[in-house]
């Protein structure tokens, strides 16, 4: 039975684990704060806990406080917490407010660091909820960390910049990688400011995990290529060839992985050869960890080994050892199996289906295009039209007439796509906002 506290006990207590804007926190300090929280709730042991998150960057202390002690803990950001329907197993739960204020008012006297975990806590993590109210998916420490590199000696010196929302599956993966893998974590709370790159560089950040859209935004930041990145991870969206090539060229020494994962299925597999999709031979034999993949009706199906599985507590009750439809559309092309998009994500143009990602990947091939989103726009004549918003590389914009460039982009699409897939309207915009999970807003 593993837990956060147990993983921390294996690390050098003086090591720095978190870098905040104005202070650093050692492993020992981390354990101390977590234990003080647990002390405060000592009468609630073995019960269900709701972690209602106000300040995201203090969530790790609360996770460490309850992991191994509470029967269940659900992680809910305050912005949507009231909309989520909790499972029966959470009834009578205690609510704790995850905030800096709570930590400021906490008593740190008589904190007993020798407490040992007593149970295997279920972690209830909300899905991104892009369609309707988020569902809550049940995991535990072992299932969440099964695909992480747990070699603390190797992980020493790895400094992760946190770009994901730590209350979500992807952010938790980064946090847990730091906890079990021996690295350090740099919070990027001033990520919108132009000082971001300076901050990452001061803190010697050498590892970043983000969605392809977030990566595209990051590389737009000035001096970003001066960072000394060694580990680059992508997930959450389709990693297309242009984005992979762009990053591989900027950071030739870095290991680049794109991870196939979801809150529902956990981490499925990761691809390290810097090419989009995954090798077709993965469809014919199980992966080293026992994960199996198959294509049925154009959908990717996945079956995982029992040890690394999670169980869905709401919105469906398929037993975990069965094949699971990922609802991602894939196609075999040469020696690769490529992702086309979500099964429900197609735009219907006069009865013909268009996958936004197919059009996006063509536009991203143009060197002036930094970020793009393709959507459907209702049309009384054909149902929907394909429209594209494009963010350009600013340095190039000055040199080229935007009208001319727009024509170039349309011509590019026309040369590679069928007529109904070519964006009917293509707008050049200053920015494309991303969701909390760092994905394009579909």
């Amino acid at each position, binding site marked *: 039975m593993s837990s956060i506290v147990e993983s921390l006990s294996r690390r050098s207590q003086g090591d720095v684990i978190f870098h905040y804007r104005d202070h650093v926190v050692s492993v020992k300090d981390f354990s101390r704060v977590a234990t003080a929280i647990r002390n405060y709730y000592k009468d609630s042991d073995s019960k269900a806990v709701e972690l209602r998150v106000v300040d995201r960057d203090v969530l790790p202390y609360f996770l460490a406080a309850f992991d191994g002690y509470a029967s269940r803990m659900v992680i809910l950001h305050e912005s949507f917490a009231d909309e989520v329907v909790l499972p029966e197993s959470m009834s009578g739960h205690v609510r704790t407010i995850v905030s800096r204020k709570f930590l400021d008012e906490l008593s740190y006297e008589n904190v007993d660091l020798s407490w040992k975990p007593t149970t295997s806590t279920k972690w209830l993590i909300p899905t991104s909820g892009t369609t309707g109210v988020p569902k809550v998916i049940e995991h535990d420490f072992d299932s969440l960390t099964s695909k992480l590199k747990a070699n603390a000696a190797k992980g020493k010196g790895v400094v992760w910049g946190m770009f994901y929302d730590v209350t979500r599956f992807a952010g938790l993966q980064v946090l847990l990688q730091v906890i079990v893998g021996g690295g350090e974590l740099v919070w990027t709370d001033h990520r919108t400011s132009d000082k971001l790159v300076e901050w990452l560089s001061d803190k010697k950040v050498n590892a970043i995990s983000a969605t392809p859209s977030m990566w595209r935004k990051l590389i737009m930041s000035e001096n970003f290529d001066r960072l000394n990145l060694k580990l680059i991870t992508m997930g959450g969206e389709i990693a297309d060839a242009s984005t992979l090539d762009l990053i591989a060229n900027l950071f030739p020494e870095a290991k680049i992985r794109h991870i196939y994962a979801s809150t529902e299925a956990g981490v499925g597999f990761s691809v390290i050869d810097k090419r989009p999709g995954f090798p077709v031979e993965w469809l014919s034999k199980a992966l080293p960890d026992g994960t199996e993949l198959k294509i049925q009706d154009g959908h990717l199906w996945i079956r995982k080994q029992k040890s690394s599985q999670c169980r869905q507590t709401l919105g469906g009750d398929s037993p975990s050892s069965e094949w699971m439809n990922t609802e991602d559309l894939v196609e075999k092309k040469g020696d690769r199996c490529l992702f086309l998009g979500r099964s429900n994500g197609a735009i219907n143009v*006069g009865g013909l289906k268009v996958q936004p990602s197919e059009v996006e990947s063509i536009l991203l091939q143009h060197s002036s295009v930094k970020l793009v989103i393709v959507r459907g726009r209702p049309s009384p*004549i054909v149902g929907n*039209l394909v429209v594209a918003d494009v963010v350009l590389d600013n340095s190039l914009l000055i040199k080229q007439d935007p009208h001319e460039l727009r024509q170039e982009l349309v011509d590019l699409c026309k040369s590679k796509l069928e007529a109904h897939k070519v964006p009917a309207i293509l707008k050049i915009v200053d920015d494309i906002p991303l969701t909390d999970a760092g994905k394009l807003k579909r």
Partner: protein
Amino acid sequence: MNKEYVKKIVLESFRNALVRQELEVPEQFDFDIVLLASGVDSLGFAVMVASLEDELGYDPFTLMEIPVYPKTLGDFVSIYLEYSEHLKTQ
């Protein structure tokens, strides 16, 4: 003044629709040309209506109470002119 502008934009979008479908663009538009015979398909018209809505700020086909289907290019232009009071201010 507005009417001239609207006419110019509508004809420009028709020209774009022809270019988009790689059809021949005449030097002078014949207003009597039957739209269905022009070679522009329904997708082409959908694109025209959507881009004109962005450019002019209105879609006459959603504004009209009794649906009217333009037969010729001249009809198409007239419909846009008829609703030109909805033209967005530049």
